[in-house]
């Protein structure tokens, strides 16, 4: 599987993501700098975590207006799978590729800890390696992960099965509405999530629960997944 990682100044989990994609796909992803206006032909585009442009306006707001994000939007429109993690999720929301917004954590503090995620919809191309209802471990590390959307949007997300991951077992770390941790767009090819599956993919990370997201995307692209 060919992958690409978007690079923006201030992102800092790009190296974690590159290491994870290299380990899981067997080949290093291509990197795409912020000024690029076109993406390479790949099976998965990832917008990694960090603090793009310092998140000095609103998390992800400046990044969403960079040239490379226009290219990401074009690719997403053509059905190319796009994964945004943490700041990547914030950027995808700011870019209008996903509905809703990520507000400051309810406790107003940065939080880094392990949480539990319920796989709400195992039918997406990013979650097919899991079982519906399965609870997995995953770390979070963010200051602005408090997902919010209006009632009509939330209803649509639920009705269409767009909520992929929910914080489970009382581990919601940020006050996100309806415990939402990760969602897909209506087309099912753009996933945004606050937790960091790339930091839980090998035994030395303390577990491998995060691999399923990448393996799902890999399987879907090669037609192997159900």
């Amino acid at each position, binding site marked *: 599987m060919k992958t690409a990682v978007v690079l923006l100044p*201030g992102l*800092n989990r790009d190296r974690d993501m590159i290491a994870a994609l290299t380990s899981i796909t067997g080949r290093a992803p291509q990197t795409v700098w912020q000024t690029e206006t076109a993406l390479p032909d790949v099976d998965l585009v990832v917008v990694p975590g960090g*603090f793009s442009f*310092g998140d000095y306006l609103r998390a992800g707001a400046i990044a969403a207006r960079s040239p490379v994000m226009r290219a990401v939007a074009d690719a997403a429109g053509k059905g190319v799978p796009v994964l945004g993690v943490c700041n990547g999720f914030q950027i995808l929301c700011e870019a209008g590729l996903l509905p809703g917004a990520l507000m400051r954590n309810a406790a107003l503090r940065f939080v*880094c800890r392990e949480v539990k995620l319920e796989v709400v919809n195992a039918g997406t191309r990013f979650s097919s390696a899991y079982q519906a209802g399965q609870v997995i471990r995953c770390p979070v*590390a963010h*200051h602005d992960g408090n997902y919010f959307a209006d009632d009509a949007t939330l209803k649509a997300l639920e009705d269409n099965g767009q909520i992929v991951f929910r914080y489970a077992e009382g581990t919601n770390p940020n006050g996100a509405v309806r415990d939402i941790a990760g969602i897909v767009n209506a087309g099912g090819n753009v996933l945004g999530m606050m937790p*960091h599956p790339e930091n839980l993919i090998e035994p030395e990370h303390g577990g491998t629960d995060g691999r399923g997201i990448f393996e799902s995307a890999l399987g879907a692209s090669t037609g192997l997944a159900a």
Partner: protein
Amino acid sequence: MTDEPAITPELVAAHGLKADEYERVLALIGREPTLTELGIFSAMWNEHCSYKSSKKWLRTLPTKGERVIQGPGENAGVVDIGDGLCVVFKMESHNHPSYIEPYQGAATGVGGILRDVFTMGARPIAAMNALRFGAPDHPKTRHLVAGVVAGVGGYGNSFGVPTVGGEVNFHARYNGNCLVNAFAAGLAKTDAIFYSEAKGVGLPVVYLGAKTGRDGVGGATMASAEFDESIEEKRPTVQVGDPFTEKCLLEACLELMQTGAVIAIQDMGAAGLTCSAVEMGAKGGLGIELDLNAVPVREDRMSPYEMMLSESQERMLMVLDPEKREVAEAIFVKWGLDFAVVGKTTDDLRFRVLFEGKEVANLPIKELGDEAPEYDRPWVEPQPRQDVAPGDVAVPKNCGAALLSLLGSPDLCSRRWVFEQYDTLIQGNSLQRPGGDSGVVRVDGHPTKALAFSSDVTPRYCEADPYRGGAQAVAECWRNLTAVGAEPLAATDNLNFGNPEKPELMGQFVKAVEGIGAACSALAFPIVSGNVSLYNETQGTAILPTPTIGGVGLIEDRSNTARVDALKEGDVLFLVGHDGSHLGASAYLSTIEEREDGAPPPVDLAEEKRNGDFVRSFIRAGRIRTCHDLSDGGLAVALAELCMASRIGAAIEAGDGPDHAILFGEDQARYAVALSPADAESFAAAAADAGVPLRRLGTAGGDRLKVAGRLDLTIRAMTVAHESWFPSYMSGTVIEPPAAA
């Protein structure tokens, strides 16, 4: 050199220069200095930059070792870890700014230490911070804790370095002067380390990074004086951090270093442009000429004085290979950073500063650094304290209640509220995160190696006996590295003390350094970098002497390490080292009896080494998987921490002796370890052969910690006590620690 105010004695004093120091300035340059020159002298000769009170004693510390590539004197120490790799690390204080403006003070402390590390060509891989605050019930404490922790996290998280360890303590003696000591370590190739020594005449001096503003003007001078009631007025001397720019600067510098363009590089820290330019020139035996009109500024009408003394953050100065200028500049343009040729190296050993075509400073560069005043301050031997025998301390009526009080006390309770605000796993290499004995980080790309990090000092011991306290800080750090299975390599010291002009406080410094030196020598644990912070006192009250030791250890095979949360049902628990007997200056005494008297526990360095080497050999052989060092609160607290972390109980027989001394004595050189039953007998035999005292404590299992005849507590009760204090305190629901038993 006109248009500047006359130099009056008041102006000289306002720059922190004493009358005799000013005489020395006059003798050196043979005329009255300009205001800019006075500022430069003030910046170079203050305590913070010149180490004028401490230098004599720092020279006595052991700084060499087989693996030491670079000791003190550069931006950070460098230690070989084999396979062409090295670890680059240092610890530095940002105490005074953090008290005045906690968020930005702490944030820029983290930024400064990260820059020290990547200036040398190393990518930062781990951070720690040692924080000391006033009494919990002091009105400023909660505000300082909240601000400092948020500032440390705000900068480090955005920059992208995992915070893997640290310390938090409370004591009334820090009421007017909190301590923020920031540690950073980076990984580099041994053949690609960058130094600050300028080489070559007529080469461009290039300014890199963020623009210069008026923030931090005079910061280093501020940090070289005691605080008084006017301290709030000094807020404008605190710098403002921009971790985004620092992250870009890191990437740009590492890219730049690969091009071969960098001849010398130095970060702009304390005293900014002045200190970095003088250090590069003086080290290389070269003069430096700067044209301030070329300096990128972000404020209008900045004077040469302000530019030379600004401590704006995220800036670097480098000597460039002129043939590589285009490629170098392109990298900085790509990252959106300033790149400006602001001067050149010369062969006249002068430090010349030009502004609007006029020379505003022309000083001998070597003398600015090397001829800084150096003092042999008078000092008096600290008075030895009478020790407290266990018989002089009431035996606890209820050992379980005493343990719960200790576990829930401000100094020993869980630091989760703090470390969950730090990104502890970014970079994907964190094997052990805060809460254990050391932070452990994989060596990125290496199949087997990992590095361990620990930061330690027990200030109440240093207050009671500076020599023993200094030695104990080193021993505990060495022990914490050993407890995860690492070979302790080297350390950095961050020496926080009061006013060195007071002989009794200078005596604390002298004896603590002596103790540190003795322990470092005995444990082959050299000091390779460090920082001294003096004048930590407010209105005449000095802090507890606090020589923080930040240590680094090497794990050759990371599949064989020990941790605190690996205890399993049926494991056999042992105490390595002798039974508890010492209560002087202990956490038990201060928490339960509200007494701070007595001498600290003796530090037997030979025993420390023997016991530690023994434990490490069993960890490295894969036979000890669970280990915890014994420190504050002694055996009972260590066992409780093992049980809570592993979520399993234990049934223990702790031996004969007074309950409080056995359970809570803080005797040194001790570990609690666990092995599988199959290994227990051979372990005991090996300890006897090695002359290591050993007690078989009991077996892990169930959901209670039971110490026969002494206490019986559920893991849940201990965990509630341990986890409650910090979040309750910070949310304002309790001010006082739980009632003593």
